[in-house]
């Protein structure tokens, strides 16, 4: 049995990777992937908590978060598609519509 603290530590590392990737990469698809990594790092935290406390709550949260993440990916990809069809780019540095 792996100790809960190891799992939580893995979560922290994964979250850090995802975070750095999210604000350093230009490609929107990569950024989306990084966000997924961060989400799953949070899921790992839930799992670690569930193991530590010996309760089932964390498992349930993790399952729900995975389902929501799937829906979110669908929306994210749809946004990228429409971004590409209107702006002909998926580079985040060029998509600065929010500024105006």
């Amino acid at each position, binding site marked *: 049995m792996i100790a809960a603290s190891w799992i939580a530590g893995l979560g922290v590392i994964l979250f850090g990777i995802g*975070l750095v990737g*999210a*604000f*350093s*990469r*230009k490609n929107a698809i990569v*950024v989306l992937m990084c966000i997924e990594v961060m989400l799953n790092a949070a899921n790992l935290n839930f799992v670690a908590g569930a193991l530590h406390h010996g309760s089932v709550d964390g498992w349930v949260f993790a399952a729900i978060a995975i389902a929501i993440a799937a829906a979110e990916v669908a929306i994210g990809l749809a946004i990228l598609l429409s971004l590409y069809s209107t702006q002909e780019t998926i580079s*985040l*540095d060029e*998509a*600065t*519509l*929010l*500024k*105006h």
Partner: protein
Amino acid sequence: MGESKQEWDRLLLLIPFLAVVPYLIIQGESAPDWAWLIVAVPFIISPIIAIAGQIWNGHDTWVNRLKEGGIIALGALGLSLSAGLWLIYDYLTTQPSKRFTPDPWSWLSFDVLTYNGEGWSVAASGFDFFGLGLYLDALSIMLLFVATFLCFLICWFAVGYMTTDPINDNSNHRFFAEFVLFSIGMFGMVLADNFLWLFIFWEIMGLCSYLLIGFYYWKKSAAYAAKKAFLTTRVGDVFLLIGLLMLYDIYGSLDFSVVFDDPSTGVGGAVVSAAKLQTALLMLFIGAVGKSAQFPLHVWLPDAMEGPTPVSALIHAATMVNAGLYLVARMVPFVDVANGGVAGMEDLGLIVAWIGGITAFMAAAIAFVQNDIKKVLAYSTMSQLAYIFTGLGAALWLFNTGNHEAGALVFGGALFHLFNHAMAKGMLFMASGSVIHEVHHAHDHLHHEGDDSEHDHASHHDFDAQDMRNMGGLASKMPVTATAMMLGSMSIIGIPLIGGFWSKEVIIGKTWYAYFHGADALLGPALLILATAGMTGFYMSRMWFMTFAGEPRNELVEHVHEATPWIKTPLIVLSIMTALGGFGLAVYGAVEFLSAEADYLSLHGHTLLEQIIHEVEHAFLPEDMQLRYVGWVTILLAFIIGPIMAARIYGGALKEGEQAIPLVHWLTSLSGKFGSQNVDDLANSELAEALQQRLYFDDLYEGILARTIVPFAAFAAWFDANVIDGAIKQIESKSVLGSIQIRRVTTGSARDYILMAAIGTLSIFALIWGVNA
């Protein structure tokens, strides 16, 4: 004839309104339960007229069938009148004692908290200090009748007057909506069982007075007059509010039932200090002075005549100006020592009486030289209201010195004069409106036949349809109006046996009585109102002679004819009321009833004839010899000297071949016998000039304003522009600069935003961690 029948068809629309009360009576309902209808129906109808008038402005049905909302207004006021009469009948026949609705409408209920040294706890929950209930006694019954009856009749008059007024096309819905809104204020004030509600309705009336004086708002003078009236009465209202707060401080409540129950015991059983209570009542009195246009807050009333004539008749003669009198009359339980009032407030009565005496005399003097028919009536209103104030002042003094019986008599007499004056003055204003209306139309007819209406408007300014110097000899042209004006003037003058005679006699006699019985300071008011009786005889007669007697002073008088039935009907109703109503009520003991000495209006167990003889004998030959002389002097001055002097100067025979109707014929022929018709005789003296300038009160007030308020306003404007606005402008320009700097952060790149969000979140975590550690 056909057209006239068609006009009456409009009245069919009133049937649904007038059927409500009979239906309720058949259903066996009780009147006090439905008294809320009196106020609620106008409250609903007023905005309906305003909105419907905007939607259907100028629409044929709206203008011709509904008279621009006039018929709806008349219906609402008819319903109020019928509900009011039902309530009055119920009061007079079943339970003639003070009553309250069992369950007043609560609108501001709250918990009463007490502090026990450690914390607050609820002493009483849902306690309601200011619930709106119903308070009925002889005083409110009388005023309720005056208000509902005159609102209805004057609205009837206004339907005829306003809808044929050439000046204001298609804006009469505004007039009727405000007119009905005003009636809410008057009805509510009369019925309210609480000083706070009295104040609220009082202010509604003030607002409507302002709106209606400024009805012709495009005329500079009207807008100015409206502002002047509003601001002058505001001075009084501020004091009224202070007085109410002081009363609340003393009694812990403003409910009539609580306050009047035991005026000598304040909140928590404390003994009420006479000095403190007297100050509070004086504050209330200043409010009354403003509302009833008494010296020194009288300057607004003459200018208020800029409003349409029905407004002058209703608000500035018959109802709203009585509000101040009502307030003073409500002070009686505080001062009535014989019934548990607080002793030691004699000064209050003296001040009220002095203010009344001064105003009565001053206003009558100014009325001598006015040429505007409505201004004469306005000054006459001030003067007559001042009579009532003098009477109330004497009553307060007598009550407070323990002479309950005499106090009650003069109190009842003063209220009876209020009734008689409201009826007569409402009618006089409507009669003057009838004259003005017809002279105006005759003028248009003569000078602008075929002209386009643009031109018409411009030339209205050159001709003053209210100036009596443009009239004369109208008695043969306008028989109904001339008769109404004659009866109204007789009532105001106090010609024996008609209307105001019964009440004026009591006021003057009992004020002198108070003087003879120890109130030395009342000699002044007593002398002033005695002199005013003669002056009233002069100026009212002068007005009648200048308008109706003598030869026409303007060719257009030839073209004057009597107005529509809408205008004539209320005049006839009120003529009968004035001629017989005062006498009838005097015989039925109105004075005793109004002063709460008698529970019913009755003949006191005598036959009608005995009672008439008793009253007449009592009026002419009081048992007290001193009062007998006072009474005779009054009659001599008012009935003989005043009118004959007026006839001597202003009277004159009618033109050859003209004949007045029998009712006024005696007066025109009298005028022909005495008259010299030399109008300019007195007009050139310095005194006349001073009176023309209204004794310079307006100049004085404007001078004071120019020296105090205007510099202060200039300073306030400077302070506003430089200090307040300056500070705000500094803040604004600096924050613009700051935001330009902050704007740089928003690059528009999603990656930067993510970075910032991450740094921000981490900082917060670090902060929380640091704090916990």
